[in-house]
């Protein structure tokens, strides 16, 4: 089943298509919410709220390729609201790497998989040390793979700002990782 085939059924309220849609996007929505909140339980609640919001507006679900940016925008808005309510910077990651990243999903041997999970956790931590704008640009461009124009629209900043910040944010992240002993 392709997403493009399922979307018209999703808009019509077909339960099976909706279940497919949830499975298709839940990893991204939860992953993004986890990047913003840094707490697995908060991220799970937020991700569920995001899907409830989408379900209440099924008729508005856009076709591809606009579907992912639309979902990311809803998820980001939900996360920003949540952080505003919490009125604090996100705390450090509340789960060890083994719990966060599903080791069974990789075809590596357990040692390599553990190492990969540790590296991912290091990247998460380094992201938290970036400025808000740089972190969001990394999240949306390098992690979620959105285009510069889509990012500019979601963040409501000029396209030139996103362009000039994009590489600077990558460099800043790499410098943080070097300081943490990665990359050498």
């Amino acid at each position, binding site marked *: 089943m392709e997403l493009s085939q399922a979307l018209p059924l999703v*808009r*019509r*309220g077909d*339960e099976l298509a*909706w*279940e497919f849609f*949830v*499975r298709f996007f*839940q*990893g*991204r929505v*939860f*992953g993004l919410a*986890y*990047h913003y909140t840094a707490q697995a339980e908060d*991220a*799970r609640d937020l*991700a*569920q709220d995001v*899907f*409830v919001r989408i*379900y*209440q*507006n*099924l*008729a508005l679900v856009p076709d591809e390729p606009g579907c992912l940016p639309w979902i990311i925008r809803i998820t980001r808005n939900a996360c920003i609201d949540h952080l505003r309510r919490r009125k604090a910077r996100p705390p450090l990651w509340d789960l060890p790497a083994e719990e*966060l*990243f*599903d080791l069974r*999903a990789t075809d590596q041997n357990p040692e390599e998989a553990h190492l990969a999970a540790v*590296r*991912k956790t290091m*990247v*998460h931590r380094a992201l938290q040390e970036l400025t808000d704008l740089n972190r969001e640009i*990394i999240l949306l461009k*390098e*992690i*979620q*793979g959105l285009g510069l124009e889509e990012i500019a629209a979601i963040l409501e900043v000029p396209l030139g700002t996103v362009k000039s910040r994009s*590489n600077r944010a*990558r*460099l800043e*992240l*790499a*410098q943080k*990782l*070097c300081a943490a002993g*990665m*990359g*050498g």
Partner: protein
Amino acid sequence: MNEPLLPPEAGLDLTRAILARTSGPACQRLHNLACAFVDGELDSAQGGLVRLHLASCPSCQSLVGALIETRNLLPALAQTNPGPWFTQRVMRATTRRPAPQNATDRRPLWWKLMHRPRIALEAAYLGAAAGLVGSYLPIPTPPVSLRVPAFVHPLGASAQRVKSQVVQAERRSTLALQQSLRPKAATSAEPRPTLWQRSSAWARARLRAFRSAPPPPAKGNEASPANP
């Protein structure tokens, strides 16, 4: 090939010394090009210069190493497993809600009315109301002629005889019934009792006793209620 005049370490030291007195270290220039270098966007001349600098600068080496690592690692962070029960949780939270506005419900009105939770209560209420109204209506007595089915006639004389006997028996029983009802109707001069008004034998006995008892002595203007 020309042999270098100085050993490599001494050559590096000399390069650093010259750069320190001229342009300063080239690391900042490399930082500006590092992302384009990692993405393979530099032309061959610039790429060669970057490689030359990296060969002699450990800090820029580790920076480019980290950039390459994040370039491979970051897309893998796009999806994180939310746990085994997440899909069920979302399905429970969404499909129990009312259907979205755009989904048109084509079931007929009577079907939707029948499938409300209150339908049993409403049916019970209507049934009770109908029973109450029905109990106030007089009991119908069908005419005698209707009680013999018409299909007996074609069976001949014996059937006619049986029919006339049945009619007479019916007439007798109807007369007896009317006789039993007539005195009551004549004395009370009230309309025929309805199901609702029919009282039990005990209640009738109490009513008779009340009617035959002498009226209680009046106390001033006070009207005492009948209370046997």
